[in-house]
């Protein structure tokens, strides 16, 4: 958050009513998430995708209006997006590794990877 800019302009966010509106939308979206989860005829993947899209929308609202990303230097948004990008890379490469272990090293057969063995010993 830019202290200098705040010192200069004093007021530096959305009007008060916006906070309440955003909060209302966040609650409605939470209810929608719960509602979608109750629909049993949807395949699990669709429910998961819907829940993640709604959560992302909620995260966007919190970041833009409560964390004031929409009202400050874009550099802070850049840092956040960069961290999400790196997280995406971590997920991508771990998935590729996890998904192809068996092809690369079939000798491990049932226990598909050393990582899995390690995780099982650590977690359960």
């Amino acid at each position, binding site marked *: 958050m830019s202290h200098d800019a705040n010192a200069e302009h004093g007021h530096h966010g959305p009007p008060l009513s916006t906070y309440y509106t955003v909060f209302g939308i966040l609650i409605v979206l939470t209810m929608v998430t719960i509602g979608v989860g109750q629909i049993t005829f949807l395949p699990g993947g669709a429910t998961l995708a819907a*829940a993640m899209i709604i959560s992302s929308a909620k995260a966007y609202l919190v970041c833009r209006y409560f964390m004031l990303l929409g009202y400050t230097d874009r550099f802070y948004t850049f840092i956040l997006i960069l961290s999400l990008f790196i997280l995406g890379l971590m997920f991508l490469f771990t998935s590729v590794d996890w998904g192809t272990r068996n092809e690369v090293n079939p000798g491990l057969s049932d226990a598909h990877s050393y990582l899995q063995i390690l995780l099982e010993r650590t977690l359960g």
Partner: protein
Amino acid sequence: MWLFLATEVLFFGGLFVGFILLKGRYPEAFEAGHNELSVFYGGLNTVVLLASSLTVALAIQASDSNNKDRIIKLLWATMALAGVFLVIKTIEYTGKWNSCLLPGNLFGFPELDAAGAPAIKDGIIQYAAHCKEAIAGHQAASDMPAHSNVFFSLYFIMTGIHGLHVVIGMGLFLWVIKSAKAGRFGPNYKGSLENVGLYWHLVDLIWIFLFPTLYRVG
């Protein structure tokens, strides 16, 4: 502050990646695990945290108009909501404890062999007697699919670390309430208040994703 938040995103993100991959590995166990979590309590806690995000955002907004009393009141409201979150979390944890739905080798309180791993007799893990009964809406631990303990390991690690963030947040709120009482926040200075607020919003953001990840989806 945003750099710190980026490290937090990656810290929790790693746990999410692990969760997704292990869910792919043990879909039945994770499905059974999801069913044991109360959507009511999880949803209630989502609302509580969203409300606390609102109150802290309004506290920062109130410092623009130099309204000291309003800042203090809103910060205490945030503290109270954080407390409510922890109380609900405690209720949930107690239920899991009573039903033996616990992480790792604690799951079902099995007899352990010399190496500390669950002892297997006649091809099955010997769970404690009280973990073979379904109680309070939970399935008996002994009836859960294999590897259900992995789900509960991740559940307790992820919600536990998140809960620790809530406790730390409450400490930070006490600190900024003290500063607010000393009249330090106004249109010209609100640095520490803003940064504590950002930290708290992040705790909220993580829960926004934890809720559908752990509780909801099939």
